[in-house]
């Protein structure tokens, strides 16, 4: 049984007991516990079921590398799956639950899979479920989904808040162990702006546990004194910032780093955001990320109670928790002896240390033997006894094939297969690795670092993360690199005295990838590599046998390292097995790619503040609140929300649209057109410039006049349209589509800045300076005359003219333009008085039947007049010639953007579909986007087509369906009836007609 010891636990505040629940059971822990340590203290070693075979799984590690102890946390709006118990700080009221079992953790129906494990080998799903095809979707997949998988997706909206935070520093130190602190000190004393971040809640890292057990000293004092003094010194430096619970999640180009800060995970009732995503821009990044211990691959190494040796001593030293009364230690290196020493000193039994090395270890072995712990060298575990809990181990010789020498009763196994530097952050941005034969691990290849724009290394690994496995080496390395980082960031490096270090030297480790080395299949298929994804030694060997030679392919075939822990424990062991199976050295096999984030980070942190009201900016016109108060049904147009229609209480949206069209044609309609783009173009070369931007001639436009213009890309495609007004000799005002204002302005500036930089033209986007209101209908002039201040008579303000003055006492620019075919004025007033002007119009217009109308009525009225709409009649592949807009293409100009492109053979091809009007034979409305079919079929057996619908509406004016479309030889086929099959199964027949359905001679607008 694991239990709480009477003494020990340097993180605990035993004066502060807390209560939490696990699978509904109330348990007790202390402040300072992690969920994992508290579960162990309550005798709960088994914490979940494995992904594929549903084998019982226990806590393996004590930190971020934990593969098994994944929990559901919380409930409702704070429910979150897949949380590692080893990095979850305990708090009062924590609710945790185990995952991937049914009906419960102790009795799990899915465990039957384990009985079939002989058949569920690597690639089983690929081989088994490929035939017959339909069975996958309906039988296999639902079954596998039920049986495989870890946490459940949350069902409610996240109740917490999140945010981002941007900082710029000279040197970012990731990792707050002794190497990180020393590097920060060196960089800080050199004058650099330093940020040190540590993912846990404590400074000092591994050395705080290991060195006291090894009786190591820094500067003649225990390690904690060094850590405390260094921390205090850093705290005092104004150029150094320190943060706990902030993990370096990812390293990106140009020294950009994402940091993941967990603010209230340990204190969920505290105010403020739960997580904060730090977006750090650093000149140099020092990775002091330490190392992770590797498991050993022996049969039954996944039985609950088998743990990493370092974790076993962490639980004793940090949390006062023993994982068992009798712990067998199995190792290939010296560090695991510290675990034996820790257990013994805590008064627990260590029946035996199995050291796979024939010669055993160095000074630490001696120290363990001096404490009376038996050491067996050259020995290994043949297999672990027990299913839901370790009951003993069978011992064999490492060099053999697993013949059992004896069995030892025990309730936990502490294993160590050596240490792998945490190279993830180094590797994220391209840092290469080198194989260190002495320690049998990959460490950063400092000659092939991630490089900055100057070709210099911008990530500098230090300490154990750099393969400096002895504390003295680590401190020296850190001091040197901290200084180098400060220097690279432009500061004068100042050396920091490296204190004297005494700590036992370790004997050489010996790589052990399989235990025993000649283990037969029966043992190999119980020797786990990846605990979370259920990948065993035999699976990787099978993959190699089946031809998966690339480590990336073998990874995907076996799923090794593809779980939420990203193979922190399994990768090196797995690729060693793969290399052995392929008969090649490990460096030749290489590693899989390390990708950010280092451990999973919350979706909320990534989204930051962007949720709810600020999920996305919504652009509002000055009259938005009025529209909202008057029942507007909204339509998104770019980031704007525009009223689609204003349905009245009992009215449908469709009926409202019909009413708005009729009222505008018969009386008076008001449209909020403020979203239209408005760009001032000014300068001696402005006319020449606009002649290039537009297909029309704009330089000849008279002051006081307006002209409709088309804008094309350099490839000839129609991109935007609008009315251009000439303000004075040097100044034009260009109206754009609502969605096009920013892009048209950018398009103009791009040409001015890159091609015509010597032309004297300035532009300014004044879109939002004005509220613009279209006053439309037979009564339009009457209401403006009633408001007074400007002569808007036919004589004073003719069609396609504009005028500046005052209307209703508000400064106004009136444009006599029409997109509806009615008598129409667009009045621009300062945005700050837009609402006042709108309300004045509504009030004065009441007697003339004024009603607001929305975008759909606008669309219908323009379609009745055969006016094109960018985005309906155009889709990025349509040129003005397709739309019969030849009249707008100036023949007098040498050039305009798109002119030459429009002369290409495909653009001049007479078989390009051309714009026509379409009138259904029975008056029905054509389906939007429908295709007109032609005779025969194409190479794919589909019906040939000869045209498509681009706009289609019910016209209340004509009381029938009207449409526009692009049709093969359309303008030459007037009167012909073509067929449009609809998705509703019906076939619609429509006659090809002129696109102008209403008031062909323009008499109504010209009054």
């Amino acid at each position, binding site marked *: 049984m694991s239990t709480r010891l009477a003494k020990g636990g340097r993180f605990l505040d035993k004066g502060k007991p807390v209560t939490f629940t696990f699978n509904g059971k109330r348990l007790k822990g202390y402040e300072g516990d992690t969920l994992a340590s508290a579960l162990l203290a309550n005798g709960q070693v088994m914490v979940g079921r494995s992904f594929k075979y549903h084998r019982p799984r226990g806590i393996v590690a004590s930190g971020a590398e934990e593969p098994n102890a994944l929990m559901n946390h919380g409930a409702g709006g704070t429910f979150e799956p897949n949380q590692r118990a080893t990095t979850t700080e305990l708090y009062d009221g924590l609710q945790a639950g185990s995952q991937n079992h049914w009906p419960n953790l102790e009795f799990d129906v899915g465990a039957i899979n384990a009985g079939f494990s002989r058949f569920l080998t690597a690639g089983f799903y690929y081989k088994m479920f490929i035939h017959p095809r339909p069975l996958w979707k309906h039988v296999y997949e639902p079954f596998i989904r039920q049986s495989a998988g870890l946490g459940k997706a949350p069902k409610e909206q996240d109740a917490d*808040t999140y*945010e*981002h*935070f*941007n*900082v*710029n520093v000279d040197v970012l130190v990731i990792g707050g162990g002794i190497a990180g602190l020393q590097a920060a000190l060196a960089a800080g004393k050199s004058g650099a*702006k330093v940020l040190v971040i540590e993912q846990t809640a404590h400074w000092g890292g591994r050395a705080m546990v290991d060195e006291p057990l090894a009786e190591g000293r820094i500067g003649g004092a225990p390690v904690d004194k060094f850590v405390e003094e260094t921390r205090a010194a850093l705290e005092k430096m104004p150029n150094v*910032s320190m943060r706990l619970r902030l993990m370096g999640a990812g390293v990106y180009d140009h020294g950009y780093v994402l940091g993941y800060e967990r603010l209230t995970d340990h204190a969920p009732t*505290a*105010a*403020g*955001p739960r997580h*904060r995503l730090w*977006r750090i*821009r650093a000149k140099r990044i020092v990775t002091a990320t330490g190392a992770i211990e590797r498991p050993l691959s022996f049969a039954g190494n996944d039985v609950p109670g088998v743990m990493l040796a370092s974790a076993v001593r962490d639980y004793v030293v940090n949390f006062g928790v023993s994982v068992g009364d009798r712990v067998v230690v199995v190792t290939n290196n010296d560090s695991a002896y510290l675990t034996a020493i820790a257990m013994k000193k805590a008064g627990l039994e260590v029946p035996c240390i199995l050291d796979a090395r024939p010669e055993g270890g160095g000074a630490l072995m001696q120290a363990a033997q001096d404490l009376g712990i038996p050491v067996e060298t050259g020995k290994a575990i043949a297999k672990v006894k027990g299913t839901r809990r370790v009951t003993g181990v069978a011992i064999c010789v490492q060099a053999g094939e697993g013949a059992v020498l004896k069995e030892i009763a025990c309730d936990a196994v502490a294993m160590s297969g050596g240490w792998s530097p945490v190279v993830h952050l180094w590797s994220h941005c391209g840092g290469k690795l080198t194989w260190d034969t002495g320690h049998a691990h990959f460490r950063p290849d400092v000659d092939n670092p991630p490089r900055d724009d100057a070709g210099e290394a911008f990530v500098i690994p230090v300490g154990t993360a750099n393969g400096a496995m002895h504390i003295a080496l680590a401190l020296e390395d850190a001091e040197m690199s901290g200084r180098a980082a400060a220097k690279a960031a432009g500061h004068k490096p100042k050396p920091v005295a490296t204190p004297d270090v005494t700590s036992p030297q370790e004997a050489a480790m010996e790589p052990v990838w399989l235990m025993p080395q000649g283990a037969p299949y029966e043992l190999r298929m119980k020797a786990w590599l990846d605990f979370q994804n259920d990948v065993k030694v035999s699976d990787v060997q099978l993959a190699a046998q089946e031809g998966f030679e690339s480590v990336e392919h073998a990874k995907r075939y076996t799923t090794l390292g593809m779980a939420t822990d990203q193979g922190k424990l399994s990768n090196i062991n797995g690729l060693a097995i793969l290399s052995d199976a392929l008969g090649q050295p490990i460096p030749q096999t290489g590693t899989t790619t390390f990708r950010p984030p280092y451990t999973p980070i919350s979706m909320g942190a990534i989204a*930051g*503040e*962007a949720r709810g*009201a*600020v999920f*996305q*900016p*919504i*652009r*509002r*016109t*000055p009259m938005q609140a009025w529209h909202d108060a008057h029942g507007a049904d909204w339509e998104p147009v770019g*980031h*704007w929300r525009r009223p689609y229609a204003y349905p009245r209480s009992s009215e449908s949206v469709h009926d409202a649209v019909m009413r708005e069209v009729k009222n505008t044609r018969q009386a008076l309609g008001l449209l909020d057109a403020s979203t239209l783009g408005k760009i*001032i173009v*000014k*300068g*001696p070369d402005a006319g020449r410039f606009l002649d290039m931007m537009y297909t029309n001639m704009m330089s000849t436009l008279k002051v006081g006049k307006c002209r409709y213009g088309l804008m094309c890309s350099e490839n000839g495609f129609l991109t935007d349209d609008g009315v251009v007004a000439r303000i004075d000799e040097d100044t034009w005002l260009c109206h754009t589509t609502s969605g096009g204002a920013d892009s048209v302005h950018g398009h103009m500036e791009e040409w001015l800045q890159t091609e015509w930089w010597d032309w*004297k033209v*300035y532009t*300014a986007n*004044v*879109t*939002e*300076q*004005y509220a613009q209101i279209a006053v439309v209908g037979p009564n339009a002039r009457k209401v403006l005359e009633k408001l007074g201040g400007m002569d808007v008579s036919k004589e004073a303000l003719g069609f396609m003219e504009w005028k500046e003055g005052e209307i209703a*006492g*508000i400064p106004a620019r009136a444009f006599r333009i029409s997109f509806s075919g009615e008598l129409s004025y667009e009045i621009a007033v*300062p*945005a*700050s*008085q837009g*609402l*006042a*002007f709108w309300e004045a119009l509504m009030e004065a217009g009441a007697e003339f039947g004024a009603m607001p109308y929305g975008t759909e009525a606008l669309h219908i009225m323009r379609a009745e007049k055969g006016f094109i709409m960018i985005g309906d009649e155009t889709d990025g592949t349509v040129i003005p010639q397709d739309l019969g807009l030849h009249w707008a293409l100036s023949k007098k100009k040498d050039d305009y953007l798109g002119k030459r492109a429009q002369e290409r053979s495909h653009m001049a091809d007479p078989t390009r579909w051309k714009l026509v009007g379409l009138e259904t034979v029975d008056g029905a409305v054509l389906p939007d986007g429908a295709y007109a079919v032609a005779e025969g079929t194409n190479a794919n057996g589909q019906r040939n087509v000869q045209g498509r619908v681009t706009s289609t509406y019910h016209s209340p004016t004509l009381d029938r369906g009207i449409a526009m479309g692009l049709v093969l030889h359309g303008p030459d086929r007037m009167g012909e009836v073509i067929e449009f099959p609809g998705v509703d199964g019906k076939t619609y027949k429509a006659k090809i007609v002129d696109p102008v359905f209403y008031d062909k001679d323009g008499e109504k607008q010209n009054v």
Partner: protein
Amino acid sequence: MSEPVSALGGVTWADGIAQIAEIGPQGMITLRGDFDDPEFRVAVKNAVGLDMPGQRAVQMSGENTLCWMSPDELLVLCPYGDVAAMLAALTSALAGHHALAVNVSDARAVFRVTGPYAREIMAKLTPADLAPDAFKTGMFRRTRMAQVPAAFFLRETDSFEIVCFRSVAQYMFDLLKTAAQPGSEVGYF
């Protein structure tokens, strides 16, 4: 004649870790021209009463502020009622020169964020370096705040002035409130 109304009517909020206020109506003029032309500089000085600001900086005096927007663009901040006169002065002083002066007072919204945590609130929303030694009173940035373009400067210690487009004023206000929620002090700057 109706009174001009700013985008949010001067709304304020102080329930978080800083004070947030929409200010305005604020007079604003976009001015483009050749900064190297001494006559342009003199014309600006005479009309606005301020010397040319340096790159990414503002000049402040009395009620007028002159902001550097780009190598050929300035933004003049002045009392709303002064815009017409100042525009006229600029236009006449720059007659014959290639320059553009245009009223953009109503095209924008202006916010003020004040308090010891103002810097941190801003740093939550913009990638610009806002460390006290990197961003000081009188400096000016055109950048983004979350998902919208914005420009800002420190009018005085702990008091940022932010200019954004009028249409996204509500977004900006909601954004600042979110970033200033109670308990969200970072404690970094």
